[in-house]
Structures are given as structure tokens and as C-alpha cells.
């Protein structure tokens, strides 16, 4: 790079003071971003990604400080700049986009005022600033800017709020844009739109970008170069394609292998995991930060600090054994459970759960809102049914209906093992309650923080199996050990456990009543990929061992594809496609599924044409006439069925054996359009 880099970190060290002790969060991080370049930083939580981002903005928490190295902006050292000068820099040259756009906006100030404020800061008059704010909102493709400007943050959807934040960030024409997990928490289709927008704007403005994400697919899509952070140290860096195709640090290799990528399925593939856990904040290392978890590590790795080794012209890795990284032994957790009894095995696939004509109407503002509309699905013994769809599609409501947490409308029936279940939980007997259990997304909130791990599980055993206290404690220990929660942790409280362990406890609890079906509502969404892989492996093992069936809700299509036998795609409370995992993911696709799948930034870097869904998800209180997808349908125009789509709601029909779709366009036509 001959030109002066826009941002350069030179041996940057940042420490947080925790209980009086400085703990190193960034360990001598050096990187540079050229003008117009997009640089991605990846790594699991706690690796220092966000700290690096905020350090670049010269914004550290109260207990954080730069302990070494320097930050250069366009060649000028800004490490020790005064507060006023830093403010001036932020006003004119660097901007940031945040992970949670909803809270990044002030809740009591109108959105327009907040965007206009940026212009006012650069000396524009109040009147002009509003016109400019409106223009800025147009730039981020907000259709009705004047109206949006008058709203408050809570009146915006997540995607809309992020557009506003981006508009605000670009208002100062920055030369550097720092984006910290800008699409985490957004729906796949919204994420894709926001990423497209960022790419377009970047092409237009030539702004350099520091892009932080835990999502390797997003990084691969968005960035020219990538750096991998582990425990605050940059362990590998390279041009995106180069790094992804030839990862040369064992951590990068492990990270890439954990991800259930396209085509992997539980029936044939086990996911790799990374053993151990990331080191505690601020631990001191003599050798390589990753040595403890690395299958290739030897004595040298543990005692000597590795330097960056050149892999190719545009690719470096901080590893003594980078040449061997590609052949890192696969780490697949040992499975040591008793094989499934022949008796159970013979039942696999037999009909277990039948949901027919399930509907749910909520009353909101005096309006009747039909959030679930005539859903019928089946699930076999030992199978997994994946539920996918954007937020608001009714995934979680279906789970609640099944569990009896909300009662379905007249006519909806849930039949488990040939027996009709009572509509509400309190009218179901203990056996029925035990046979269907749930694992929630956030174990922090689902586990009683005052109870010990044993107590959490044994209480459930006591209730659901009518065991006495002693037996239920024994059973709880059995269950926990089965979920590989170490005996030393059985008396711990949930706070003392990592996210992955907490989720294992939650799974143990769900298994207390020997369930036939466990509903998993985004069980791995809050976890890092390496932990996610271990949890997914555990679920698969449990299924093989006990013949349990899962209903698996996730917005992560890769995960759903990996773990599911059948998949139901939901849109606006309706099943629009239902079939085997194979069918749903390989096509022919329902137009909605097609759009959904095409919006996922895939990790192997193959360019797939995105099929955009135009507009926003309509409100279920006022669904469009005809097919509910028709105003947004990517395949309606030119299909020859426009009239029908707009007037008549299609039925869920079997288009191929075992493959159902709710679409007027004949499957042969769809197939032809999709090739």
C-alpha cells in the first residue's frame, strides 16, 4: 500500500481496569485500512472486536484505556488527541454504525431531529439541516422520509432504524465508517437489504470501512480484507477470498469448521467444535494465545510468542505451524451413550405429532389479528421439524400453541401419539406436560438464578415424574452428566456458567419428564459458533439415543438445514412451504423460500443472485387480499398468474411427493424460472 492508510492501528494495546487491576483486552493489534477499503474483523464474543472498533473511534468505556501503541488517522497520530479535537474528528471524518439500532437512537427525540443534528453540528442552519436530513434518508432508501422523520425510534422496525443510523453516520461524509455488528439481530431479508445498501453507498462514496461481525458469511460478502481476533490478538489477516480458502491459523480453521454450512446434514456429518473456552479477560500468555485450545500446539507454542508469518503476499498468520493448519485434526466430541434400543429404532419416522387447522387470533387495538392461520403439520418419531420465517411470521406463536401456553381457536387440534391434547397447559395432565417441553433462546432468563443447577433440573423431575426428592436429585445428576455438565458444576448457580453450559442445563431441564417432543426456540442464537456446534451435536446425539423429536425454530437457515428432517416455511402465520429438508433447500422453491435463501450471505463465497423481497412485511391485522405474499412476491410478475395471485389465496397443495406449497404458480413453471 503506497497511499497513506485511512486508519492504522500500530501495536495497539487496550486494557480494562477491573477491580483495580489492568486487564489486557487488545494485545498489540496492528492493522491498516486503505482509503475505500473494507476491512473485516471476526472472532467470537469477548475477543476484543468491539473494543477495537470503539478504540478506532477513540471511545472507550470509563474503565478502558490505551496502554500502548498508537492509532493513526490518515497518517496523523490521534492516540492522544484532546477531547475537543476528537469531537471535531467525529463530526467531520469518522462515523459509526452500531449493533443495536433501536437503542442507538434517542427515544424522546424525533428521528428527523436526530439526523438533522449531524448537519447542524457542521454549521448548517436549522432549516437547511432538515432538508438535508430528508435527502440523507432518501439516500438510505427510505421511501417516505418526511413521514419517517416525524417518528420516534420505537416506531421504527429494526431495519428502518438501522437505515436511519446509517444515514446519520454518512451525513458527515466520513472518510472512515466503523460498523459494529450492523446486521446482527435483523431478519435475513432485512440484513441482506442493509448489506446491499452499505455496499452501494460504499461504491458511491468510497468510504473506508472497518466492519465488525461474528458472522463469517457477512464478512466474506462485505470485506476486501479480513483480520481474525482471538483473545485480543490478531492471529490471522489476509485478503478475504485468500483467507477463507486457505485459513492458516488453527483458530480460523476451527471457526470455519464449526459452521453448519451448505449441504451438511446431521444424518451424515458431525460438526467440529473447538475444545475448551476462550481465556478469561486479561490473562497473561508467554506463548501463543491459542495454544491451550489448539490441537497442533507443542512446547514451543506454549512458551514463545509467535510472530506473523507470511503465507502469501496478502496473507499472514501468527502461528508457528501455519503450514499444518489446514490439516488440523477434526475434533468431534466423543460420543459414549448407549446405542438406541432396537425397539425405539423401529418406530423412527412413525407419526407422532399431528397439528391440524391451528389458528390464533389476538385482539389488538380492538382489531382482530389473525397471527396463525390454519396451520397443519406433522412430525414423526425421532425427527426434527424446522420452522423458519422472518420475525412476525408466527414461529414462536406456533410453539406456544403446541405447549398450551396460548389456546388455539375453535377447530384447531394437536394430537400427540394418537391422543388429542387439551388446549391449555393447566388442563393437560403431568404426562402430557412432560412429553412436550421447550428450550428457550436465552437461558439467562429461562433459568432461576437463585437455584442451583441440580435444583433447577431436580424440581422439574419431581414435578413431571412424581419422583421423591432423593430420586429426582439422582435423576437430575444423571441427566446433567448426560448433557456433559461436569459434576463439579452441579451445585453452581446459572450466573457462574458460560452461555453454552447454561443452555445444556436448560436442555437437561426440558428432558426431565422424558419428553417425546422438545421445542427448541432459537436455542443457539445467543451462542458463539463453536459452542453452537457443540449444542447441535448434543441435540443430535439425544435424538439418536432417545428417539426424541424436535421442533426447531431458528432464523439461521444453515442451522435449520443441518438439523431438520422436515422444514416448514412460515409467512404471515401461514405455512407457505412444507417438505423434507432436502426438498425445501434444493428446490423447486416457493418464491418466499427462494427469496429467504438467497438473502443469506454464504460462507463459501459463491455469488448467488439475490432474489429481493420488495417492501415490508404487511401487518397481520390487514393482510393483502389473495395470496398474502403477492405484493412482495419475486415471481408473480410475468408468471401469467398475477390476477389469481391478487384475488384468491392459494391452498397448501402437494406439488411433489412429500413437498407442499402454497402457490398459484405451478411447480414446473417455478422450476423453470428458478434455473
Amino acid at each position, binding site marked *: 500500500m503506497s497511499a497513506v492508510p485511512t486508519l492504522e492501528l500500530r501495536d495497539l494495546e487496550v486494557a480494562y481496569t477491573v477491580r483495580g487491576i489492568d486487564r489486557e483486552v487488545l494485545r498489540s493489534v496492528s492493522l491498516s485500512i486503505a482509503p475505500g477499503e473494507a476491512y473485516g474483523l471476526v472472532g467470537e464474543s469477548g475477543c476484543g472486536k468491539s473494543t477495537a472498533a470503539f478504540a478506532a473511534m477513540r471511545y472507550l468505556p470509563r474503565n478502558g484505556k490505551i496502554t500502548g501503541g498508537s492509532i493513526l488517522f490518515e497518517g496523523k497520530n490521534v492516540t492522544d488527541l484532546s477531547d475537543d479535537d476528537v469531537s471535531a474528528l467525529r463530526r467531520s471524518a469518522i462515523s459509526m454504525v*452500531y449493533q443495536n439500532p433501536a437503542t442507538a437512537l434517542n*427515544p*424522546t427525540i424525533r428521528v428527523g431531529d436526530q439526523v438533522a*443534528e449531524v448537519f447542524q453540528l457542521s454549521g448548517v442552519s436549522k432549516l437547511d439541516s432538515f432538508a438535508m436530513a430528508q435527502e440523507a434518508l432518501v439516500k438510505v432508501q427510505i421511501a417516505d422520509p418526511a413521514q419517517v422523520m416525524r417518528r*420516534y425510534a420505537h*416506531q421504527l422496525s429494526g431495519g428502518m432504524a438501522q437505515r436511519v443510523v446509517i444515514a*446519520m453516520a454518512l451525513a458527515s461524509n466520513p472518510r472512515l465508517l466503523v460498523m459494529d455488528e450492523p446486521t446482527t439481530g435483523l431478519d435475513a431479508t432485512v440484513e441482506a437489504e442493509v448489506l446491499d445498501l452499505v455496499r452501494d453507498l460504499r461504491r458511491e462514496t468510497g468510504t473506508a470501512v472497518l466492519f465488525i461481525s461474528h458472522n463469517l458469511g457477512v464478512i466474506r460478502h462485505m470485506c476486501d480484507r479480513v483480520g481474525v481476533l482471538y483473545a485480543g490478538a490478531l492471529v490471522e489477516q489476509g485478503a478475504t477470498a485468500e483467507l477463507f480458502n486457505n485459513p492458516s491459523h488453527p483458530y480460523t480453521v476451527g471457526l470455519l469448521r464449526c459452521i453448519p454450512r451448505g449441504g451438511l446434514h446431521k444424518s451424515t456429518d458431525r460438526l467440529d467444535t473447538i475444545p475448551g473456552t476462550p481465556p478469561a479477560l486479561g490473562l497473561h500468555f508467554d506463548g501463543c494465545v491459542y495454544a491451550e485450545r489448539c490441537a497442533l500446539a507443542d512446547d514451543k507454542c506454549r512458551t514463545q510468542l509467535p510472530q506473523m508469518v507470511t503465507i502469501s503476499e496478502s496473507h499472514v498468520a501468527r502461528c508457528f505451524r501455519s503450514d499444518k493448519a489446514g490439516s488440523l485434526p477434526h475434533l468431534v466430541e466423543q460420543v459414549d451413550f448407549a446405542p438406541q434400543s432396537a425397539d425405539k429404532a423401529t418406530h423412527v419416522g412413525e407419526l407422532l405429532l399431528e397439528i391440524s387447522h391451528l389458528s390464533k387470533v389476538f385482539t389488538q387495538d380492538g382489531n382482530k389479528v389473525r397471527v396463525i392461520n390454519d396451520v397443519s403439520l406433522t412430525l414423526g418419531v425421532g425427527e426434527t421439524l424446522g420452522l423458519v420465517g422472518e420475525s412476525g411470521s408466527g414461529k414462536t406463536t406456533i410453539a406456544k400453541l403446541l405447549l398450551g401456553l396460548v389456546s388455539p381457536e375453535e377447530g384447531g387440534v394437536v394430537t400427540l401419539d394418537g391422543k388429542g391434547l387439551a388446549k391449555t397447559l393447566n388442563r393437560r395432565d403431568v404426562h402430557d406436560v412432560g412429553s412436550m417441553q421447550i428450550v428457550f433462546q436465552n437461558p439467562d432468563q429461562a433459568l432461576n438464578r437463585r437455584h442451583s443447577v441440580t435444583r433447577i433440573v431436580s424440581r422439574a423431575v419431581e414435578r413431571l415424574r412424581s419422583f421423591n426428592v432423593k430420586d429426582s436429585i439422582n435423576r437430575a445428576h444423571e441427566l446433567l452428566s448426560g448433557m456433559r455438565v461436569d459434576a463439579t458444576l452441579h451445585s453452581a448457580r446459572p450466573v457462574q456458567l458460560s452461555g453454552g453450559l447454561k443452555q445444556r442445563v436448560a436442555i437437561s431441564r426440558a428432558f426431565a419428564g422424558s419428553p417425546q417432543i422438545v421445542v427448541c426456540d432459537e436455542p443457539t442464537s445467543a451462542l458463539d459458533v463453536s459452542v453452537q456446534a457443540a449444542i447441535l451435536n448434543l441435540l443430535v446425539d439425544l435424538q439418536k439415543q432417545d428417539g426424541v423429536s424436535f421442533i426447531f425454530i431458528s432464523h439461521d437457515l444453515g442451522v435449520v438445514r443441518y438439523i431438520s428432517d422436515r422444514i416448514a416455511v412460515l409467512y404471515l402465520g401461514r405455512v407457505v412451504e412444507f417438505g423434507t429438508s432436502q426438498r425445501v433447500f434444493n428446490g423447486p422453491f416457493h418464491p418466499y423460500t427462494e427469496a429467504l435463501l438467497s438473502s443469506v450471505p454464504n460462507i463459501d463465497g459463491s455469488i448467488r443472485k439475490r432474489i429481493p423481497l420488495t417492501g415490508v412485511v404487511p401487518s397481520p391485522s390487514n393482510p393483502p387480499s389473495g395470496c398474502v405474499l403477492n405484493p412482495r412476491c419475486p415471481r408473480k410478475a410475468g408468471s401469467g398468474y398475477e390476477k389469481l395471485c391478487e384475488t384468491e389465496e392459494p391452498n397448501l397443495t402437494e406439488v411433489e411427493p412429500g413437498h407442499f406449497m402454497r402457490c398459484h404458480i405451478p411447480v414446473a413453471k417455478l422450476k423453470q424460472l428458478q434455473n
Partner: protein
Amino acid sequence: MPIVSLLAAEYKLFEVMKKFILKRLGLSVITVFLVAVIVFFLTHILPGNVARQYLGRGATEEDLVEFRRVFGLDKSLLSQLFIWIKDLLQGDLGTSMQYRGPVSDLLLPAIGYSSKLAGVAFFLIVPISILGGVVAAMNRGKKVDRLITVGGLSAAVIPEFVWAIVLVLTFGVTFQIFPVTAFPEEGNRDVLNQIWYLILPSISLLLVLFGYIARIARAGVIEALESDYMRTAVLKGLTRRQAVTKHVLRNALLPTIAVIASQVPYLIGGLIAVEIVFNYPGFGTILKGAVDARDYSVLQSGVIISSLVIVGFQLIADILFAVLNPRIRQKVSE
């Protein structure tokens, strides 16, 4: 924005707010009515015999009968209640047993005086306490913060009448900076002078309420300072000062408003004690006189009036809270 461009959404919001206010108003009316009923039964049933209580052991049977006739105590309890409430609604607070004159003649001027004191106290307490809270929050963990939080709470544990006496002794008697009474002599009652006389009693109330209000303001400011939107404001390039005034205060002081309104009962309770120490002819002094003389009609009306004030302030706080906070406005409309 011109008023003409009042959007449909805004109009709906207006309608929603109207509905919300009417609902709260209705609840307030019910509350005051219940207070009236409870107070009535407490005074008429608990001590047993009102006439005997009032006239004392020496009264003859004729005295008692005559007293009951004059004050309508010979009628059934329900009809007494009915008459009392009917009179209240017409603005008739009844007749004082002690002075044999209309209660309103006694209470209204007293309320006027108390309002002056409460007003001065309020305008002293609210800005000083909020300022204290904001300063503490901005200097979190530093000496100023500890001084304000610890000092404020320490001051609050000492009752206001003790403060009143300490203040009178210190600034009134020893240093003679402030007058020892709260009420200037006749011919010297211009507004400024009246306020000057009310400062010392207000300070004794301030000392008690400062700790609570400052603490809530401090918590609100700290929460806002640590919020994501504050971070956004700073990273937009606002200086810390600009960010605090534009983005922090409005959000931070929302909860404080509710707390201030909830402190109004304490303020009224405090007024009574302080008025007595400073010999100020306010509502509290009259009420205390009524208690001493067992003047039930004054007591009843006094309680009704203070409940009206308290409920009124709560209503104002709720409305302010809703108007200032768009999220609550939204919730209200759901």
C-alpha cells in the same frame, strides 16, 4: 412544523391522550370520594361519641343533645355522610365546632398561606435537588458525588421539625441572618419580604426531600449517560456538554418528575410540622389546632383538601410523564 400539517397519526394521538387523561381524572375522583367516605367513618365511628369527645366530661345531657342538633349528629350516619358530601360538592365545608363559623373561613386563608410556603419550598427544592443529582451523576465516584449522595441521605433521616428548630437556632437566633418566624409583621408584607421570611422554613423541607429527589435524578442521569443513544450523540461529534444537555437531561429527568410528585404528600406532612415550629398560620397549624380541640368538621375538610392536592399532583405527574415520554404515549394508546 405548522399546525396545519397535523397528521392523522397526531390527531389519533391527541384523541388517545384525551381518553387517557379522562380515565385518570375519573380514577382521581373515585380516589377522593373513597378518602371522603373513609375519613367520615373514621371520625364518626372510631372515637365513639363526637359530642362527648368535643364537649368533655363536664357537659350535661342537654348540652350534648343541643350540640348534636346543631351539627346534625342526631341524624343517621348514612344521611350525615350524604349531607356532608352534598355540602362538600357545593363547596360548603361545614361549620367549625370550635369557632362556630364556616370551616372555609378558617381553612381558605390558611391554605393560601400554606400554598405560599409550599410554592417557595417547591421552587427551592426541585431545582436544587435536580441540580444536585445531575452534578453527582456527572462526577460519579468522585468526592462531590459522595458528598451529595451521602450528605443528602443523612440530612433526610433527620425529621423536618428538628431541622426547623436547628435552623431557627442557628440562622435565626445565633447568627440572626434569617427571621425566626415565617410571617412578616403587618405593614411589611410585600412579596419579596414574604418570600424572605419563608426561606428558612423551606430550607428545612429542602434538607429532608433533597436526598430522595437528588438520588433519583442522579440514577436517571447515570442511566442516560450510559445509554446507547448517549454514545451515539458523543460519536456524532457532540461535545460532552452538548450531548448531556440535548440528549441526557430530558430522558434522565422523566423518572424524577414522577418522584417529585410522589413526594408531595411528604411535603404536605412536612409543612404541618414546619409551620408549627415557625408559628406560621398555614394549613398545618390550623389542622393541628383542630386536632387539639377535637374539631372534627375542620379535620374532615382538611383531610379532603389535602387528598385533593395529593391526587391532583399525581394526576399532573402522570400526564406530564406521558406527554414527555413518547414510549408511554404509545403504551397508553395500546
